């Protein structure tokens, strides 16, 4: 019982809040649930191929190859691969995380995975195109320029901060995914 609660505390908490809202503001509660149902299908539709691709990758791609491409000693090439991979991957953060997880599992360098995450969330190509059309090229261009520096800064600072022991725990965690 205690284990179940610990595992599902987030869902339980939200369900309880939702029940309260339904009880006191039925209209708002129903609209909120309606949103949840509709989007649940949309998001799952989007996630399904990701999960399949990620696990095909997990089964087929040898750890050694991955380590060579974006691992610890991949150097500049690894950074570039991570950056390009991120720029062309047009999926939201929640769908990116499993991908990042499997890259870690395959021995990817932590900073490269953070670059991949950062590049995809803040300046993937479809997003840039859409941003230009709605907010103008000036805004997009300046934000892009500033953000590319930010992404690298975040990736390298975090890798510096993590101790060897932290890294070991992180890779062990990824191994159990």
């Amino acid at each position: 019982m205690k284990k179940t609660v610990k595992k599902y505390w987030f869902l339980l908490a939200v369900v309880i809040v939702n029940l309260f809202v339904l009880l006191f503001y039925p209209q708002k509660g129903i609209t909120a649930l309606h949103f949840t149902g509709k989007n649940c299908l949309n998001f799952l539709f989007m996630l399904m191929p990701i999960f399949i691709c990620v696990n095909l990758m997990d089964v087929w791609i040898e750890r050694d190859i991955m380590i060579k491409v974006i691992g610890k000693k991949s150097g500049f090439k690894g950074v570039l691969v991570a950056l390009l991979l991120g720029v062309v991957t047009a999926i939201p953060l929640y769908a990116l995380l499993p991908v990042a997880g499997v890259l870690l599992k395959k021995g990817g360098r932590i900073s490269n995975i953070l670059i991949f995450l950062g590049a995809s969330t803040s300046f993937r190509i479809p997003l840039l195109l859409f941003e230009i059309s709605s907010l103008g090229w000036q805004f997009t261009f300046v934000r892009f320029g500033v953000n590319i520096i930010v992404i690298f800064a975040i990736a390298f600072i975090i890798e510096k901060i993590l101790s060897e022991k932290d890294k070991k725990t992180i890779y062990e965690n990824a191994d159990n995914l």
Partner: protein
Amino acid sequence: MNAVFTYILYGVTFVLLIVSFLKDKSKTLLSLKKAWKMFINILPQFIAILMLVGLLLEVINSETIQHVIGSKSGIAGILISSLLGVFTLVPVLIAFPIAAELLNNGAGIAQTAVFISTLTMVGFITLPMETKYLGKKIALLRNGFAFLFALISACIIGVILV
């Protein structure tokens, strides 16, 4: 744009599955089994996230957003819009038109930039999920730094684009 990408993704996945199946049946089945396990594992957290977003969207609508982070809202406006970005999980396809609307109605550039930056890079709601895949330490550090840098870069963008 996202829908097209999803269809392409389905096409690619389908082709990969067939190729994989032709090459090695048992490996393919193993990967599908793993995909299913991954799916079941993440489902409860995922439903929770969507329920929370549904509730949040009921409370915060675009009018409220326009009211709170107008062009004269200054640093308080920047802070508020950064928090809005952190705590909401809105697809960018919805967020950009909102942001454009904000700018048209005289919202500050810095406020809009920080909203987009935190919305795309920092996710409070997805934090449990991130912890699961990348570990607690990376998740916390990444979101913390992304938040900090979003504030700094927003100020830079605000200065450049005045």
